[in-house]
């Protein structure tokens, strides 16, 4: 309308940029993590305190909220039962301090600086950039940063990351598991690839390619990408549908886009077998609204039992998990994100380490944590287990490929 309005608008946009830069630059003052009486910071004879920085607001808040709720549920139940008996003979209650980083690396670092003076270890937080933001600081402060949720392999390399260990399978592990299943099918398949244009998507595609290496029956006919901020991938699906591929490898972490992809391909009457990553394969949140039953098969990989799946409706693990989550995790719904289950498992793995800890020190804890083998945490699927002693591997590296059967997932050995 008026020229002045445009100037006003431009000014306002510049202001948003300035404000966000200032938020990003916000810095936290760290206190010295000095220890007393031989014991490390954050542990006394009756309590141990764990810190979490994770997104509790913004686009990743759904999964982020789960990373806190799961571990609070696990230790809430353990505390109510009297506490955790440590390897040094003392029984301690486990306290959790969580802060919101909104998936912003600078905030994650500030949160870490705020927490490091009072917590024994950092754990369970979600996000590759956020966990990377305080990795080097945690190493120089000798603060354990363990069972964090990232698929970045750097956290599992003990020479580079002596105080780190990630929980979940790296993205390539997942892609490779599906690639191998395809390669072993013995029949010819054309694969269309749509991946997120970042480490997440690239990790999956890299794994897929490793899995089908040397298999002459599998051909990738087209690879396209999208940005995590996109509101639609209709154009990509249209382009991929034109290839007539019979397998769609969809390395996507955004819930609404995953639903829209499934819907769009059906509208175009393109019905390939479909692969989705573990964090966007929820039957209730994605497959039902996307009408996944229309496809010959929707595949995903997993290591955790899905509480929403009817197959596990009466599973004792799942029942206890859901009631703990409600009572101690303040999470009243059946979770749509696997991060709630993963975080609950992290609690169980930490408890394993605590029972093996003979001294209340961080070094002793790291040693105990790295000595767990073939531990079956609650909610783990058959064929998977926790192994922390293998260098360059996360706590859980085994995944099983599963196929959607209209209501939930069942483990499959063969493709088709």
């Amino acid at each position, binding site marked *: 309308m008026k020229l002045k309005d445009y100037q006003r608008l431009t000014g306002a946009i510049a202001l948003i940029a300035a404000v966000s830069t200032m938020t990003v630059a916000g810095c936290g003052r760290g206190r010295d993590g000095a220890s007393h009486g031989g014991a490390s910071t954050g542990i006394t004879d009756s309590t141990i305190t764990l810190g979490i920085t994770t997104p509790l607001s913004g686009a990743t808040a*759904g999964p982020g909220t789960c990373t806190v709720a799961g571990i609070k549920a696990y230790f809430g139940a353990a505390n109510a039962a009297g506490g955790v008996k440590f390897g040094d003979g003392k029984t301690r209650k486990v306290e959790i301090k969580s802060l919101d980083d909104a998936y912003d690396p600078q905030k994650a670092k500030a949160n870490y600086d705020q927490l490091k003076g009072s917590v024994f270890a950092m754990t369970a937080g979600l996000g590759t950039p956020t966990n990377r933001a305080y990795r080097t600081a945690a190493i120089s402060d000798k603060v354990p940063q363990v069972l964090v949720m990232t698929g970045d392999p750097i956290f599992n390399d003990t020479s580079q990351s002596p105080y780190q260990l990630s929980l979940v399978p790296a993205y390539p592990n997942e892609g490779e598991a599906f690639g191998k299943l395809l390669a072993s099918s013995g029949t010819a398949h054309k694969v269309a690839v749509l991946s997120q244009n970042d480490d997440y998507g690239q990790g999956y595609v890299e794994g897929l390619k490793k899995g089908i290496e040397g298999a002459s029956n599998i051909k990738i006919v087209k690879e396209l990408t999208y940005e995590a901020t996109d509101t639609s991938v209709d154009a990509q699906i249209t382009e991929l549908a034109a290839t007539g591929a019979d397998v769609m490898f969809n390395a996507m972490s955004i819930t609404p886009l995953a639903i829209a992809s499934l819907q769009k391909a059906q509208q175009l009457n393109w019905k390939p077998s479909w692969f989705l990553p573990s964090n966007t394969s929820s039957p209730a949140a994605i497959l039902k609204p996307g009408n996944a039953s229309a496809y010959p098969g929707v595949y995903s990989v997993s290591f955790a039992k899905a509480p929403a799946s009817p197959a596990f409706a009466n599973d004792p693990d799942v029942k206890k998990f859901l009631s703990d989550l409600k009572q101690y995790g303040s999470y009243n719904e059946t979770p749509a994100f696997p991060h709630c289950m993963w975080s609950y498992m992290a609690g169980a793995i930490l408890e394993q380490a605590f029972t093996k800890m003979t001294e209340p020190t961080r070094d002793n804890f790291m040693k105990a944590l790295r000595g767990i083998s073939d531990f079956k945490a609650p909610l783990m699927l058959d064929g998977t287990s926790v192994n922390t002693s293998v260098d360059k591997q996360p706590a859980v590296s085994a995944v099983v490929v599963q196929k959607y059967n209209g209501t939930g997932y069942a483990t499959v050995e063969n493709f088709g």
Partner: protein
Amino acid sequence: MGQFIQLVVDGLSNGSIYAVLALAIVLVNQATGLINFAQGGMAVFSAYITWLLTEHGLSLILAILLSVLASFVLGALVERLVMRRFERGDPDTAVVVTIGLLTLITGICGWLWTYNNQQFRSLFSLTTVSIFGAAVSIRSIGTFAVIAVIMLFLQALFLGTKFGLALRAVAINPKSAALSGLPVGRLLMAGWGLAAALGAVAGALVAPQLTLTPGMMDTALVYALAAVILGGQSSPVGVVVAAWLIGVVENLAAVYVHFIGYDLKVAVPFILTFVVLVVRPQGLFGRKVVARV
């Protein structure tokens, strides 16, 4: 050729999402002279009201109607209780206040209804019909139709009615409007209320596609603002055409211009906007403001 038509149709359908929000921004701009950054947030809040009502067993149509009414009241209250304090001062301050409102409303939605994606039922089915060989969903056609109706309604309201004229008068010169006997305060409240009500319709159209989350409109808002600048802030028809143009050009550039691809397609609407601002600052369909010196 089939793919080309499909991409154009997909682009129009994406553009509709931006268009519906852009219309609400134009409405507030015409009625108050402000750009309201909280428009997306208010639309999300209205969508949550609709969703809540459907969860309690109301039919979708009834829920949307009730939400439109509730949103009108809420929008008017926001103007009376919050914006009124800033309207007499520097307009820049008021714009910044709307940014604060956006953050506040998003936070309230997250606090009340969590950040999880909620499934929102659609007014229109996803069944497709074939047009020139392209698959077009009933949902896209329905959204199209609703937008066309709103667009014509707004155009008629502002250019053809006394009420519209009064709204514009208050926006352009509140002092003279008050002196000529117009109830400035009530007209401003009505403007905000109407925009919020339109936001409720926008939310109901967009939510099935994007799934309902507190940040649902954030990206759409950026595109909607681009459409507003491209189309001209004073022209409902202009912003809708601009939004459709953005959707289509973005898709075609991604697929057919190789150095752009899917990585850089997000830059296309903004480069387009930049060029238009340089060549035609009032937007493609906007009216040039002539000041007497």
